[in-house]
Each structure stands twice: as C-alpha cells, then as structure tokens.
C-alpha cells in the first residue's frame, strides 16, 4: 500500500469531503469527527511520505497507470515533501482550534463548510504534489473556488471582498493557464519533468520567455505580490476566523511554492534566471512589497488587518529571496515557505481565539489581555518573535538565509528592506504588547457574552495554538536538518 501513498494524499480528503457534505444532510454530528479523521489520516500519510523521501529519494506516482508524458504524475520530492507536511499540519491544527467557532457560526451549514474546508485543502495538497503543469491549474481553481466561498460568508464587507478576490484570482489563474498554453505551443507537453528535459534545446526561445513572464504574473497576482496585493487585506480580514486561519497561512505560501516549482522544475534555473533584467525587476518589486507591506501594517488599527499587511511583506521576502537566483536565496525562500506558514497559522489562531472571547480585535479593545488570557498571549508572543526574527524561533533562520543570499547577490536594497521590515515588525508587535500588558482590562466592554467574567478561551482552542507556537521553536532548532537533508537536495545543480 505504501507505493500508493501519493494518491492517498488526495483521495482521503476528497472522499471524506464528499462524505462530510453528505453527512451534513443526514446527521450533522458526524461531520466534524469525519473531517478531523480525514485530515489526520492525510497528515499521517504525508509524514510517512516525508520519511520515505528522506530515506529513498523522490517518488513518482503515475495516475491511471500511464507513464509520464502521456498521463498525469504526482511527484513527491525533497522540495514538496516538507511543504506537504506543513500544509496538512496547519490545516489540521486550525480545524481543531476552530471547532468551537465553526460549530457556533455555521450550525446549519456545518456539512457544507467542512466539505469546502477539506476541498480547499485537497486543492492545496494537489498543487504541492502534482507533477503536471495543467493539473496544477485545475487544483488551483479548486482551492480558489472553495476559498472564495470560505471567505464570502464572513462579516460586513466579506462578500464584496470575496468577489474582488474572485476577480483577481481568476485573472491570476487565467494568466497561469495562458502561460501553460505558451509552454504547450513551444514544447507540446504538459508534464513538468518532460518540459524541463526539453529546456536545454529551447534556451533562446522567445515564446518560452513570454510563457515565463505570463506564468509568473499569474502567480504573483495569486500570491498578492505588491502592487497586485490590493485584494488580500480585505479578503483575509473580513473572512470568518476559522477560514482566515486556514487560508492565510496556506494560500500565499502554496503560491510561492508553485512559483518555485515553475521556476526550478518547469523552466529550469538556467532559463529562469537567464535574463538579469527580469530577476532584477522582480527583486525590486519584492523590495517594494516588503517596504509597502510594513508601512501599511503600521497604519492599521485592527489586529487582523495589520497581520494581513504583514503577510504582504512576507510574500516580498520569499519572492525576493527566490529571484536572487543564488543557492542561499532560494534556500531561504523555500525555508520561509515552511516557517511563514507556521508563523501565520499561529498568529491567526491567536487572533481567532482573542476575537472569540473579546468579540473585537481593535487595538483599543486588547487592553489587559496578558492578565486575562495568558496562554493565548504566550502563543501570540512566540509567533510575533518569529515574525520579527528573533532566535531561536524559525523566523530568524529563514531571514538569515534571505539576508545572506542578498549579500551574496549584492542586492543591497533587498538586504536593507529585510532589516527595515524586521524593525517595523518589532514596532508593530510591541505596540500591541504594550496595550495588552500595560493598560488595565476594561470590564464590561463588548465581549462575546459567555458569562460576565473574562477568562482564558477553552482548552480546545488554546492547546492547538500552543502546539503551533512551540512548533516555531522546534522548526527553528531543526533548521539545519531541514536545509541539509531536504531543501539543498531539492535545488537543482546549475545554481551558484
């Protein structure tokens, strides 16, 4: 059975999404256990795949039994095995942490919500695992479509934000599709490995260069790289918390992964980084993203909105790191995919816990939270330290690689932007700590109506949060292993 694990990665969530949606009509009590079981199962499968890959190298799985260029393949290699584990673990933790909220907010539509949740996840997992350029598009659309729905049922402006997200998402995905079309014109195949085999003969091809630009543009829109980031803050901050905790950690990160995949596996690094002007432009865009994201985050007065701008800046980290085009930079970008997913997960889970008890995430409502919700705040602090980049949390180490990569490539703008953003992040989070630490808790302002006394959130919310927060330190301490045993093996030869 182990040889079928790459397929199980997708089948388990897909079948259980169907079962959950059916159970929503038959007996709602079964929905949640089923969802947890399926995500847990998929997580176990992904961990076992990671172990297999580390022991025996990449695994290729042929869907429908057709060999690569003819059929669709799934490829689990050093690059995506850790990403898969992180994606599934994040979704799993968030699901458990959000149980109370989901059951309270979507009572009637529990089945539909959980089914969408799992389908979104299976889309994400598929994007990460697939070895076929077109299959990636289909999965991208699954993830996007379910994402629009998960966001759309939020508060106030959520439908409008979600529709704007839909427009931008569709533009992004369509550009990617168009880029695949150009690749197909030039090579006649859709299999990633097959395309990269043909790349050496097509080095000077203008069509492929256009395809690269179009694919990348599409992915940049999807990952909200500055200046195409406009949809993200509204969509994420108005989404229901349970959805934000799923979508915010995964979407941008998986899109960055897709960028790495397209850049390294489809186009091969020799081609991707062959035009200095393109790399240079994109690195400067990333610098813009980092600076703009940080400054805009400073202007926000709501916790969740502030975090969305932090995400915009983080996207700049990863895109810039990748397009530095050297080994250190790409290592940093890939490492940051994993670390940033964990950090964002922790932050959004903490915000979800806070809003659940407090009913608000405006800065002025956060007074005295250290005293009232100590465990939640410990999780929040750890995540904040990781975002600022304080050792031994994982954020420090990926930033380390990114900055070193910038120095090696001589991209001083990028280095300065990273340091600047670390400082701004420190200001951002300490502003909140100050409010939560110094100001006394204002009794009686609008909390969620769970009894008169404000207290720590239920254990089912706090425990996953603390686990996520501790994972930040664990990831940090295992950076060496992750880099030498996985990421460096994933980066193809031919990169300085």
């Amino acid at each position, binding site marked *: 059975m182990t040889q079928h694990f790459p397929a199980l990665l997708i089948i388990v969530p897909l079948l259980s999404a169907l079962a959950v949606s059916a159970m929503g009509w038959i007996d709602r009590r079964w929905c949640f256990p089923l969802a947890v079981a399926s995500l847990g199962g998929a997580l176990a499968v992904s961990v076992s795949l990671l172990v297999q890959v580390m022991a025996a190298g990449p695994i290729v799985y042929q869907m429908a039994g057709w060999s690569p260029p003819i059929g669709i393949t799934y490829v689990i290699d050093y690059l995506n095995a850790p990403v898969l584990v992180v994606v599934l673990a994040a979704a799993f933790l968030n699901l458990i942490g959000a149980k109370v909220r989901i059951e309270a907010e979507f009572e009637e539509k529990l089945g539909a919500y959980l089914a969408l949740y799992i389908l979104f996840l299976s889309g994400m997992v598929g994007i990460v695992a697939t070895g076929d350029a077109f299959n990636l598009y289909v999965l991208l659309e699954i993830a996007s479509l379910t994402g629009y729905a998960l966001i759309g049922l939020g508060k106030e402006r959520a439908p409008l934000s979600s529709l704007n997200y839909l427009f931008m998402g569709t533009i992004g995905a369509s550009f990617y599709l168009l880029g695949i079309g150009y690749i197909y014109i030039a090579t006649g195949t859709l299999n990633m490995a097959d395309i990269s085999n043909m790349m050496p003969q097509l080095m000077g091809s203008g069509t492929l260069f256009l395809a690269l630009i179009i694919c990348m543009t599409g992915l940049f829109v999807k990952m909200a790289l500055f200046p195409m980031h406009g949809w993200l803050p509204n969509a994420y901050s108005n989404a229901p918390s349970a959805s934000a905790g799923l979508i915010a950690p995964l979407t941008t990160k998986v899109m960055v992964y897709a960028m790495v995949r397209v850049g390294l596996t489809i186009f091969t690094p020799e081609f991707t980084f062959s035009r200095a002007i393109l790399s240079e432009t994109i690195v400067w865009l990333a610098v813009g993203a980092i600076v703009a994201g940080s400054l805009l985050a400073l202007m926000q007065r709501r916790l969740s909105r502030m975090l969305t701008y932090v995400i915009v800046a983080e996207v700049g980290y990863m895109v810039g790191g990748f397009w530095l085009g050297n080994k250190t930079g790409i290592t940093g970008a890939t490492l940051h995919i994993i670390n940033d997913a964990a950090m964002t997960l922790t932050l959004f889970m903490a915000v979800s816990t806070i809003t659940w008890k407090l009913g608000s995430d405006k800065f002025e409502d956060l007074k005295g939270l250290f005293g009232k919700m100590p465990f939640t705040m410990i999780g929040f602090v750890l995540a904040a*330290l990781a975002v*600022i*980049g*304080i*050792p*031994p949390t994982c954020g420090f*180490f990926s930033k*380390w*690689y990114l*900055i*070193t990569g910038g*120095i*090696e490539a001589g991209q001083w703008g990028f*280095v300065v932007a990273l*340091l600047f953003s*670390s*400082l701004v992040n*420190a200001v951002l989070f*300490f502003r909140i700590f*100050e409010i939560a*630490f*110094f100001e006394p808790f204002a009794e009686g302002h609008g909390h969620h109506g769970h009894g008169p006394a404000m207290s720590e959130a239920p254990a089912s919310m706090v425990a996953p949060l603390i686990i996520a927060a501790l994972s930040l330190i664990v990831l*940090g*301490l*295992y*950076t*060496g*292993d992750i*880099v*030498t045993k996985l990421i*460096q093996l994933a980066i193809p030869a031919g990169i300085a």
Partner: protein
Amino acid sequence: MELLYSAKPLAAILVSFFVVPIIFSARSENVREAWTFVAALLKFAIVLSMLPFILKGGQIAYTVAEVLPGLAISFKVDAFGMLFALVSSSLWIVTSMYSIGYMRTLKEHGQTRYYACFALSLSATLGVAFAGNLLTLYLFYEMLSFATYPLVSHHQDREARSSGRKYLTYILGASIALVLPAMLIIYSQTGTFEFAPQGFMNGAFSQSTMTVLLLMFVFGFAKAGVMPFHSWLPAAMVAPTPVSALLHAVAVVKVGVFCVARVITGVFGTKMLASMGLGTIVCYIASFTIIVSSIIALSQDGLKRRLAFSTIGQLSYIILGIALLSPSGMTGGMLHIAMHAFGKITLFFCAGAIYAASGIKNISQMVGIGRRMPFTMTAFLLGSLSVIGLPPLGGFISKWNLVIGTLESGQIFFLFVLLASSLLNAAYFLPICYKAFFCTDEEAMFERKVNEVPTWCLVPLCITATCSVIFFFYPQPFLQLAKMTVATIIGAPMP
C-alpha cells in the same frame, strides 16, 4: 589544551529555565521563592563544579543542535566565560534573597511573573557567558532583551511603559540594525562563527570594512551602554531595585560588554586589531563615554539615576581595558567585570534599602540617613570606594591593572582619562556618604523614625560589601581566570 564534552553548561543554563513553570504553578509565595533559591543554588553549584577543570586550563564544550549547516548552537566554557558565569550566578543567589525582602516590604504586584522572568534572564545570561560561537551569543543576547522587558516595565504604569519602550527600542533596534547585518556580512565572507583565540577574520576584509564592522558591534551591543546608545539605562531605572541591581549593574550591561569583549578577542583578534590600529578608535569612544557619563552623573539628584550614569562610565572602563589590547589592560578590563559587579550591586542594594525603608529616592533628601541606617550606609561607603578604585577594595585591583595597561600600550592619554574619571567618581559618590553621616541635628532630614530595612534586605548588601573587601586581599579565582584568558589570547604560557 584539554577539551571536555559535557552537558554541564547546558544544565547550568536550563536550571533556571525549568524552574519557570514551577514558579508559575507554585501554590504559595514561600514555595515559589523556595524554588527560586533551589534553582539559584543549583545553578551556582553547577558553575562551581566546572571551575576546577577550567582553572587547570581546560575547556568544556557542548553542542545542542546544528541549526544551520555548519553552524550550531553550541557552548564552550573557557576562562573568560567562567569568570562572567561565576559572577552572575553567585549574585543571583544574593539578589533572590534581597528580592524577597524588597518585594514583600513594598507589596509589589505580579511577583510570580517577576520571579519567572528573573529566572529566564539568568538562563540567558549564562547562555551568553558560555556561548561557543557568535550565533549562540546573539541568540541569548536577544533572549535576554525579551526576558528583561517585563522586569523593566514591572510597574505597568505610564512611566514604566515609556521606559520599557525606550529600553526595547535601543536594545532591539541596535541589535537588529547593526549586529545582525555585521554578523551576516562576516559569515558570508568567512563561513564560520566559531570564536578563536586570535579571531577568525584572517584578513577577509579591508581595513575600512573592518572599522565599520567593529563599530557596528561596539554600538550594536547597546547593552554595553556606549554613548550615544546609553540613554536606555537611566530610563530603565524605573524597574524595581533588585532588577536594577542584578540586571542593570550585573547581568544586562555586563552581557553587553562581555559581548563586545568576545567580539574583539574572539572574532576580530587582538593582533589584527592592533596591527590596524582599530583598538585605539574604540578606546577613544570609550574614553568619551567615561568622561561624559561621569560629568552627567555629578548633576543627577536621583540616587538610582546617578548610579546608572556611573554604571555607563564603568562599563566603558571594561571596553577601554579590552581595547587597549595590552595584557594588563585586558586583565584589568575582565577583572573589572567582577569587581565592579560586586561594588555596584552593593550600591544598588543600598539605594533600594533606603527607598524601602523611607521612600526616598533623591540624594538631596538623604542628609543624615547614615545615623538611621548605619549598616546600609557603611555598605554604601564600601561600595563607592570599590567603584572609585581605592584600596582596600576589589575595585582597586582592576583599576590598577587598567592603569598598568595604558602604560604597557604606551597610550598615556588614556591614563589621564582613567585618573580624571576616578576623581569624578569620587566627586559624585563621596558627598553622599559624607552627608549621610556627618551633619548637624538641624540638618538631618529624618524627623520620623526610620529603621534599618528588614534582614532579608540587609544581609545581602552586607555580603556583597564584605565580598568587595575580601576580593582586595584574595582576588582569586577571578584574577586567575582573567590572566588565563589573556594568556590564551596572546599565546603566553598559562600562569
């Protein structure tokens, strides 16, 4: 040189780390404070158990995890680290005792958080002392910043808030903006962070780059309080006095100078710096800080603020000593870490005792207090004499070595700096003592009955004052450790 692999350094660091959950879950105050003592004694015992081996000229190494390829979180206990670890772990015991008296007398809130953060800070301090490479050093340096933030802003009022903000802005801002980039630049060129007796730069940089990098470190470790990155220190004096005492006379600021000293000796290498003449630049910066801070201290009326500026000046003694790059200068600088610690902590304890007993913070209101609190003020006198550097107190020994160091290196200018500063020290300390003891009855400002502070406060400050005296007559093992460090650096045989 013998190298021993042992988890003892890690154990010493983790002792106070593991006590944090226990402190949080303790049922009563007594249990909580008992555990603090257990941790402090245990920590001191572990450190002490490593001492004989180090004194024999050995080193103890331990690697926790390889976090980046070829770059590990690792510990290496050498003589210099041992010296610092001894000072901070022994003083934690005394401070814990003092904290109990002080915090209970003033009925401070949030004591559980206080003890927990204190324990964390000590973990971080020992981590810095035992760090085997620059990455580990930086890691614990940052950890210390965060662990001390709740202590500095303990009162949670407006003043504490703005001081806390200033504290973090300076410390964190400087370390992220200056130290981190400098580290990255060095790493990208040399590919290593492992401290070496003669540094590991090996001519990877030109002189101008070296200058910039060195200055980035000297200023970036803002805990060392080199001007103009000093003003967090007076601001941080809003903290409860035990915090000021241990952290801002011993742990935090000494971590700063320790880091600077480590970087100068272990990263750049003294020979390299001497050949490029970079030590002198640092000496001038330190001299400037020494003189200016002493003059500012003269004008301060708040006792703790005066002590703070005095600390800024004394820290730069250490940097000056190291940067002289001469054997005696370095010995003096390193020894001053210990001697100044015992002297200054006594002074802070006294300031806290006065405040706890009478509620007075300003020097101008302390006329005649020596009659009411004779033990405290005697200790204060001893402490100030030590800091000024007069015999028969420990401070004399370190200052003597510093003076010899300036002569050895032939830089007479700094000799005058030291002498001028000693005079200034005397000028801002001795009047306090004088006014406290010698005044007419009319001048005495204490109508109401002021008694000596509780025993829990009094005993610690007597202990540290006595230690200051003892170290004059018997400066071991600190002198030995400092000399061993210098011997390693200059490649001389072990003393």
